[in-house]
């Protein structure tokens, strides 16, 4: 039972963590609390749904369908993300960040309700994207998809973390996030770098959607809403701009969600406890768990 709960925690944590880093890509680099990111997640869900439903009509090779529909959906969400960036955010590059937040709220609504109008208000069930196999670990049967979710999420996280920390592009991304003009003096095209961050964000959101869909198959047009809030919370909790932080934040939220109802006598107090813990942590570490102290010297 404990092992099972642990796996559940890992599963939920991985999904939150992945969603959080996908959010964090744009958030950390373009410095934008992107309320429309949830809509990208929603769109990813629909694209995955339609792509896989269609593909399953042709073939029954689950893995193939999984990978292929992820690719199709990633392409779709990337295009959406690029358009979104060009149309709604680029004109606001020099605006106060908060204006961009409001603009993103607008874009988010637009995309979400577009999805509602195109796909209908009926909820959908994501086909099983990961083969329905169970494995035995120490006497407990664990569905394969749970393991896969955890594995895929970890791979994505490690790749991304290396990318941002070690590569030239990663350094450029962080430079752009701090001073676009100064970055331009180094020959860095900030628009391009920001576009990359939107694309990475979209692809990661798509993977997160694929995993989410495998775990919780029924979804409607507003799935992305709460995911977005959780991602925002996780990203901040871990320390803004830190990929590892977002991962940690995601796992903590997952942990609270799994542990709180377990230890509390009355599960309806769960949210109070969860947000209480959140506030407490941020009061003790006001720059997030892994966030660097904002480098400001007088």
């Amino acid at each position, binding site marked *: 039972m404990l092992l*099972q*709960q642990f796996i559940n925690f890992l599963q939920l944590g991985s999904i939150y963590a992945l969603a959080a880093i996908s959010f964090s890509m744009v958030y950390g680099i373009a410095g934008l609390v992107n309320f429309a990111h949830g809509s990208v997640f929603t769109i990813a869900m629909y694209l995955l749904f339609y792509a896989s439903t269609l593909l399953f009509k042709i073939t029954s090779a689950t893995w193939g369908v999984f990978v292929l529909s992820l690719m199709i959906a990633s392409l779709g969400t990337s295009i959406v993300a690029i358009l979104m960036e060009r149309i709604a955010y680029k004109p606001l590059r020099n605006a106060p960040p908060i204006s961009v937040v409001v603009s993103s709220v607008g874009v988010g609504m637009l995309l979400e309700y577009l999805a509602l109008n195109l796909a209908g208000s*009926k909820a959908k069930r994501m086909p099983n994207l990961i083969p329905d196999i169970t494995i035995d670990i120490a006497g407990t049967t664990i569905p394969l998809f749970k393991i896969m979710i955890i594995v895929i999420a970890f791979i994505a996280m490690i790749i991304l973390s290396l990318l941002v920390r070690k590569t030239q592009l990663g350094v450029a991304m962080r430079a752009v996030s701090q001073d676009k003009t100064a970055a331009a003096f180094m020959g860095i095209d900030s628009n391009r770098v920001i576009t990359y961050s939107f694309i990475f964000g979209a692809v990661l959101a798509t993977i997160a959607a694929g995993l989410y869909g495998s775990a*919780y198959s*029924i979804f409607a047009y507003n799935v992305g809403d709460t995911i977005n809030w959780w991602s925002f919370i996780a990203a901040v909790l871990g320390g803004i701009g830190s990929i590892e932080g977002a991962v940690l934040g995601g796992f903590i939220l997952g942990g609270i969600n*799994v542990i*709180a*109802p377990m230890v509390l006598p009355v*599960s*309806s107090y769960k949210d109070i406890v969860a947000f209480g813990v959140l506030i407490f942590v941020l009061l003790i570490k006001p720059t997030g768990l892994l966030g660097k102290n904002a480098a400001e010297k007088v």
Partner: protein
Amino acid sequence: ADEDTIYFGVNYELTGANPIIGESAIKGVDMAVNEINEAGGLVVNGKSYKFAYKALDNGFNTDESALNAQEFADDESIVASIGPNDSDMCMATQAIACGDGLPMISPWSTLVELTSCEYYFRACFTDTFQGAILANYAYNYENARTAAVLYDMSNPYNEGVATRFSEVFKELGGEVVESQTYNGKTGEEDFTSQLTKITGKNPDILLMPNFYEEIVSQATQARDMGYKGKFLGSDTWVDTSLLEWDTEGLLEGSAVVGHYHKDIASDVALKFIDNYHKIYGETGDPNDIVALNYDAVYLLKTAIENGQSFERKAIRDSLANIEVYEGVTGTMTFNNGNGDPTKSAVIMKIVDGKFQYVDSVTP
């Protein structure tokens, strides 16, 4: 021409958290209105009038629900209002119903407090009623002696059913071994901890009075956590999508309370189902929301024709005195001294991926 048209308002949840409610609701209303008009409209004082409605989206938002209600109340051509469906939305309009004397019929709000206002009526039974039925069913039909509940604590409906179920189940001699909640408003999708606790107590039956979109996930997780017993569901389960989604048959054997069933359907109901398929061409049968909204319109019609008046007060009085209305969702009688109809509920069981009729319960 316009003088011959009688309007009512529809205050419905087209956008916001659960757009499927609004979409289904308007289908039911639309069907009923068209049918009535085809059949010659409303006949009052020997004259026949066309029946029509003005629909306003409330965005699943209390401010907007109230505003819609106020707009209907102001509009003198509007005789009554149908909806909202959600209890929270309804409660925001309650003060207007009474304050301005506009009769309102909620098709689907099962919250007990709703009809404490004398202008509010409903086309459905209440949470107390269905909670009791569920408890009885669990105890007597399934011989359950221990039960557990898992419900969305952010919604008064879910809480209402769960609470009543627990009360009655205890009265009958059973024991509610675990009562677990989650918060639907924060988009919770993982219930494994709650379900682990429930499974640990090994209840005979598990009640999940939640919206059907959440059920598959909850059932899957319950099974994953090793829950072997049966599930029990409330009227928010009754939508054929639920059965389509349940590809693994996890819900087999679960029982739910609903508002009507094809197998015991009256002619009215059969015609309704038939028409629905003709108009909307959908494979699944109309869900309870469609049926209740349809009935709500007919209730209004009945009241108007009974009272032979379009006056709001008169409509209210005549609604309160409807003796028999044969609806899709059963026969209703308003004899409780308030806006609650006396009507029966249907117990159904999910067998072979279908809702199978088990029994009807009359109060």
